[in-house]
């Protein structure tokens, strides 16, 4: 093992602070922080595609929403579903959807990939919006959070605000470590190789399509995990979670934080959600709060034009010049 780097120390300190937060934070902020961490899982899953494989997906909401809808459909009307069955079911659905659409979308690349991923996410939007499967534009309510039981003993009470927060924090840390491990493995190195020079990787004997498909499935499944948690937190699902604004938003998070770093995706989720919350805060911006997307849009345009490496790049730039 290498000695801990500065990054490891910083990340551990942040983890500790996050773990202590519910002990003194107000309920509203604890919930908001849980939302940020859920979106951070979502953004990390997309970073796997955008940052590490160079595949720009504009349809990542498909997995996020699909997983939520599977949970809502599976849950009994007024009772709590079991986490042990509903979570694998939701993640399995995402993995299968990723495998099937992946076979099609990965035949394309570049700008085609952007358009086709968007189109497939939109298809899923219509599946849940129009057919009896999804409950129309109102969506479906989830009256109880999933139960975590071993035999008859309840292990975690996810209805509890703090327990839910720690549950999400644990999963976010687990996803981060898991992805670090995956990306350091041969598989991860092959992915980066494909991003840099796919022809060379193929010439070296790597079946690049299989690697991309496996990565696409992994990414979709992790996005599904975020979608499952989000549906659980909000207590309802509606077609909005499948819409392309969700896909666009998470892409903004990844780019904002600096892609291809994982912790950049977490930072991006944090900044994006906080920006969203403060711009739409009526106490601060009054009547303009209703039009908060105007400021958000201008901010995104400015980032695209002025900050090619996102906010993380801004820090690097300062280190070099400051």
């Amino acid at each position: 093992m290498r000695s801990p780097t500065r990054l490891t120390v910083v990340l551990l300190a942040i983890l500790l602070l996050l773990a202590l937060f519910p002990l003194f934070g107000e309920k509203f902020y604890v919930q908001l922080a849980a939302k940020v961490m859920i979106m951070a899982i979502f953004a990390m899953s997309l970073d796997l595609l955008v940052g590490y494989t160079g595949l720009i997906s504009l349809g990542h909401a498909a997995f996020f929403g699909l997983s939520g809808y599977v949970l809502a459909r599976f849950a009994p009307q007024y009772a709590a579903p079991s986490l042990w069955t509903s979570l694998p079911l939701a993640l399995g659905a995402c993995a299968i959807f990723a495998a099937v659409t992946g076979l099609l979308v990965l035949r394309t690349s570049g700008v085609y990939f952007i358009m086709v991923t968007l189109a497939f996410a939109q298809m899923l939007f219509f599946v849940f919006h129009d057919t009896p499967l999804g409950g129309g534009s109102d969506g479906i309510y989830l009256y109880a959070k999933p139960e975590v039981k071993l035999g008859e003993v309840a292990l975690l009470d996810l209805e509890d605000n703090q327990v839910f927060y720690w549950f999400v924090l644990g999963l976010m840390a687990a996803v981060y470590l898991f992805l670090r491990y995956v990306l350091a493995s041969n598989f991860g190195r092959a992915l980066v190789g494909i991003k840099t020079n796919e022809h060379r990787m193929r010439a070296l004997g790597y079946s690049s399509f299989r690697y991309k498909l496996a990565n696409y499935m992994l990414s979709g499944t992790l996005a599904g995990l975020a979608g499952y948690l989000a549906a659980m937190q909000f207590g309802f699902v509606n077609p909005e979670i499948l819409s392309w604004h969700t896909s666009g938003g998470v892409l903004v998070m990844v780019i904002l934080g600096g892609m291809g770093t994982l912790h950049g995706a977490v930072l991006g989720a944090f900044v994006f959600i906080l920006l969203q919350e403060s711009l739409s805060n009526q106490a601060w911006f009054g009547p303009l709060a209703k039009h908060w997307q105007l400021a958000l849009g201008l901010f995104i345009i400015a980032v695209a034009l002025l900050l090619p490496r996102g906010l993380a790049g801004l820090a690097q730039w300062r280190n070099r010049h400051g």
Partner: protein
Amino acid sequence: MDFYSFLIQLLNGLQYGLLLFLVASGLTLVFGIMGIINLAHGSFYMLGAYLAFALVSSTGNLFLALPVGIALAMMFGVGLEWLLYRHLYARDHLYQVLMTYGLILVFEELRSLIWGDDVHGVAIPALLAGSFPLTDNLSYPVYRLAISAVCLVLAGGLYWLIQKTRLGMMIRAGAANREMVQALGLNIKLIFTLVFAIGVALAAFAGMIAAPVSSVYPNMGAQVLIICFVVVVIGGIGSVWGALLASVLVGMADTFGQVLLPEYAGMSTYVLMAVVLLWRPEGLFKR
């Protein structure tokens, strides 16, 4: 379905498809020639529809509103290209997606600030308000036929512009080899600005003539944009003729889907796209 109902749906599908072509052709031209993926292209369609609403309310006549609207849209396109898009030609698609996504948010909020969030209607001009009787109780509106006719004329005009004129030659040359065209002393920047403005004007024009039949409502651009992506993917990126064929295919799939399988109609165009992708991953007409 008897013959006349079938004919009506066929004409509806054709009209919807040709209208999509006006929007999709701009999208595919801008991508094919400048290499820009423009998510905000649907907003230009929305802009057109709202311009039609505003100008018809003030002038009372769609025929007067059209030239004014097109001129405004052209100017808007030139300004936008000069101010923002120009800086993204050499950049990765990722930043083009990012910036144009931000633009959509800005346009939607500006629309909300200027025109509010209500659904508006635009009157069909009196000259085209009638309908052709088909049987005792079925008839077909003249205005929809007029839309199809105008779109066909514009498609022909676009063909003529790109294939037969000197400007078209420069546009094609610019798409094939940008540096060479510059070395030959042509002002490629001006050509790009012009192509972008034409794309904006085409989409806005589509929005203007569609306003009387589709009404004018928030977020109308997003829906059109995504369908146009499907059109461009099916037709092959950069191919105007592919876009024409794909538009009509998508128009038909959507229209007949809504008649035959109403609950699944939203998906029909995407299923069509999946089939085409399986068969030809680069679209029907690869450039």
